[in-house]
């Protein structure tokens, strides 16, 4: 348990039980300066995970519950006339935090959604002509209920691209669930956990992700994977160049978490499903024969 990163992951494991891989994926996503989309049913620990991440990494946390009447200004903030000061003063919205949990993004109108997504992409907001930088680090965890419900606006495919990864949490395994029921409330436990690193240390780590080596052989592998998705008959479109870059960055972050100075094919494979899953568009006429991420990995030889 040497580095602050390993300590942080260890602490997370003690709070979120049985979610080893998902926690590392979320951490990799954060280290790669990406944003995370969690698609899962309510009550499997999405919020707890976001809280724990914020706590362990010493990040300032904000939660935005998306509803159909939520307006962009409710997220970004508004300028209010202050009679005492004799002028307008900007009241920053909840987006001005280091870790945002955007709960049930698909409940809000497309206009509100796009305000969030724009902020995620630009890492700054423009309100009433003035551009304001968002804090660093800036990490959004959005959740989406996979079941199609009346009155929801599922994120369009082009918007899904803004998230570096999409993961599902799933039910805990029986052993973890038993511990969950026997022990104290997770949220209470959370209060006792001390941050494992500071925000500045996190930014340093994010910088070092870029230094993780990607050898020519590994680039060959990435190219082979991308090319394969473009040739598969079951897909309407394959991976875009942006998706390729995302895949590389996520794999670098994964290698860093694993304590390696370079990316190996297994790193790519570990993040592949999470990075690629929401970017592959199935060809509608060949429904049923759409290949899964695992199948794609099995079909492409490691060079």
């Amino acid at each position, binding site marked *: 348990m040497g580095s602050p990163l390993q300590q942080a992951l260890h602490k997370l494991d003690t709070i979120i039980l049985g979610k080893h891989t998902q926690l590392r994926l979320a951490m990799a996503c954060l280290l790669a300066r990406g944003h995370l989309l969690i698609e899962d049913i309510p009550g499997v620990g999405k919020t707890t995970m976001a809280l724990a991440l914020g706590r362990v990494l010493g990040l300032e946390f904000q939660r935005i519950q998306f509803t159909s009447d939520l307006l962009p200004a409710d997220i970004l903030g508004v300028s209010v006339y202050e009679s005492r000061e004799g002028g307008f003063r900007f009241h920053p919205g909840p987006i001005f935090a280091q870790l945002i949990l955007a709960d049930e993004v698909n409940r809000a109108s497309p206009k509100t959604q796009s305000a969030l997504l724009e902020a995620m992409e630009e890492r700054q907001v423009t309100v009433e002509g003035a551009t304001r930088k968002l804090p660093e680090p800036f990490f959004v965890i959005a959740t989406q209920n996979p079941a199609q419900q009346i009155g929801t606006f599922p994120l369009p495919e082009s918007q899904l691209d803004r998230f570096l990864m999409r993961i599902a949490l799933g039910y805990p395994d029986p052993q973890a669930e038993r511990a969950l029921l026997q022990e104290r409330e997770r949220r209470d436990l959370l209060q006792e956990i001390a941050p494992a690193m500071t925000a500045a240390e996190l930014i340093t780590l994010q910088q070092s992700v870029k230094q993780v080596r990607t*050898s020519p052989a590994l680039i060959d592998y990435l190219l082979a994977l991308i090319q394969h998705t473009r040739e598969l008959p079951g897909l309407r479109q394959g991976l875009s160049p942006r998706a390729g870059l995302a895949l590389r960055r996520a794999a670098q972050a994964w290698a860093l978490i694993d304590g390696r100075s370079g990316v190996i094919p297994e790193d790519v494979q570990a993040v592949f499903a999470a990075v690629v899953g929401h970017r592959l568009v199935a060809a509608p006429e060949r429904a049923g024969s759409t290949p899964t991420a695992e199948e794609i990995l099995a079909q492409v030889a490691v*060079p």
Partner: protein
Amino acid sequence: MNEYLPLATLLRLLAVLTLTLAPHVGHLPPWVSALIAGLIVWRGLTAYRQWRMPGTMVKIALALLAFVGVLVHFDGRLGGQNAGTTLLCVMTALKLLEFKGRRDVMVLIFLMYFMLLTHFLFSQEMWTVAYLFVCVLAVTAVLIECQHRGALSPRITLRKGGIMVLQALPLMVLLFVLFPRIPGPLWGLPEDSAAARSGLPDQMAPGDISRLIESDEVAFRVEFHGPVPPPSARYWRGPVFDHFDGRAWRDSVPTFASGLSSRLELLGEPVSYAIMLESQRGRWLFALDMPAARSLPDDAFIGREGQLLARKPVTERRRYELTSYMQYRLAPELDEHARKRYLRLPPDFNPRTRTLAATLRTHYTDDEALVTAVLRMFHEQPFVYTLRPPPLGRHSVDEFLFDTRRGFCEHYAGAFSFLMRAAGIPARVVTGYQGGQHNVFGDYYVVRQSDAHAWAEVWIENRGWVRVDPTAAVSPQRIEQSIEAALDAAEGLPGHLAARTRLRFYLEARWEWLNGRWNALVLSYGPELQQRFLERLGLDDLRDTILALTVLGTSILAFMGVLTLRQFAPEPVRDAALREWQRLTRRLARAGLPQRPGEGPRDYAARVAAVHPEWAQAIHHITQLYVRMRYLDDPDPAGQNALVDAVRAFKPRSARRRSWIRS
């Protein structure tokens, strides 16, 4: 292209394989047919029941056993078409033992295409071609299916395959017509194919000709260019026999070359005709008595006894034009040496016939009168023409002439010639065909093996050799009509000669005509016919150009093939670390643990270590070095050397053997 075959596709593939192999069942040894059937059924069950595939040792053992089996069956000779085809069939079926991935599918499919060709070695009939078209369609459909992910409905693949086959048809016709033909059969037809052929025998003993009557095979077809001689004049001369050994008539000096022909004077009106001869054994070309020497085909000559021969055995169908004269004088002078030869008889045979000859000689001093008297004897005394004569003993002519008096044409021709020689008249036996059936659709005549006949020739002063057919004296219908008219239906005619209804007669004639056209237009399309065809198209001057274009086109295609092959050949491995890693994975694959396509080195090492804990240390060491060299750091010579040493030191085979001993 999918790596693993769906069950439905595999079963369809097996069905198509059965289809392509089925016509060979007749030629294959029974144990080979059984083995192939067993293998096909076994492969189907294996896929269905998820049985294990056999190991390398089993496969090698089976392949060797099958090879030795074929070798033993054919007495160590694998050159003939039967042995070669058998070996090909067996090995194709054995391919099923290691039939897994895409490469095996492609190999099997191309083997099946090749297999289709081998059927032409055995049969070139129309129905064979039709059947092979069906096979090509089926194989192509399976090929299409194997190129897709998942099983496809046969409706789709058959339609696509059908379109492809149809698209290939014009090319097929073009190649058939224009591709330069080589004289002779393409494969230099091996010897064993002649054994199956029927034809006139090389000697004539009682029963030799009547055996041929059982066959309805076509001997040749004739087209007359002018007036058609009557049936009684249509004697097609074949082998001539001048030596009697007491039992059989043979040729004392086999005719090998020209230059010995007797003098021939041609009289009367010429008859010109074309003969489409089926392949047969021997070198006989058949002609109406007697063909004019100037009209012979280039490679034919007339033998000493007026027979027409080719210089080489007639192993393939051929067509030739002839002009014959129905009136002729053959060898008006006979020298003393020849005269002696045509009078020679074995002593101590047939004393009663010799007595009869002596008696006749005292009554008739004139040779012609004596011949007439003998013919009258055949006609007036109760001689019977029958396909099933009683067997004869040592004095066969005596027994036939005085006791049984039932015989087929060879009995009459043989006995007559014997009697003539005994009476001092030079005589010999001529075999060949007589008559021929008219086909109204094509206006030609079909001469079948069942038209085989034997007659006699006697030498008369000033007239030369004169044809005398004693059978005509016994049974005029045989000569004037046909064999089925002459034979009593009650004695059990061969099926093809039995009473015909009008419809059967019509259908037979139609089918025969169709076959004749097929033979004439397709099967005998050789260099000669091609030249004539091109001449008619005005392309004859371009023959050399066509040849050059064909050579050029073939070379270009071959060159493109080589280029494509090179493109698909694996690139040489440039990365030194990867080369070592592949050396390791190859060794592990031989030990039964190949690296899966999508498996990274670390996962692979973990899997190997889980199966073989005794290798874990070495494998992890190698993997660590490899991953460092290839992914983590820039390659350095020291690391490379360490990797090379580590891989060289790793010996999975010996380790495996040790582990066997331990367990």
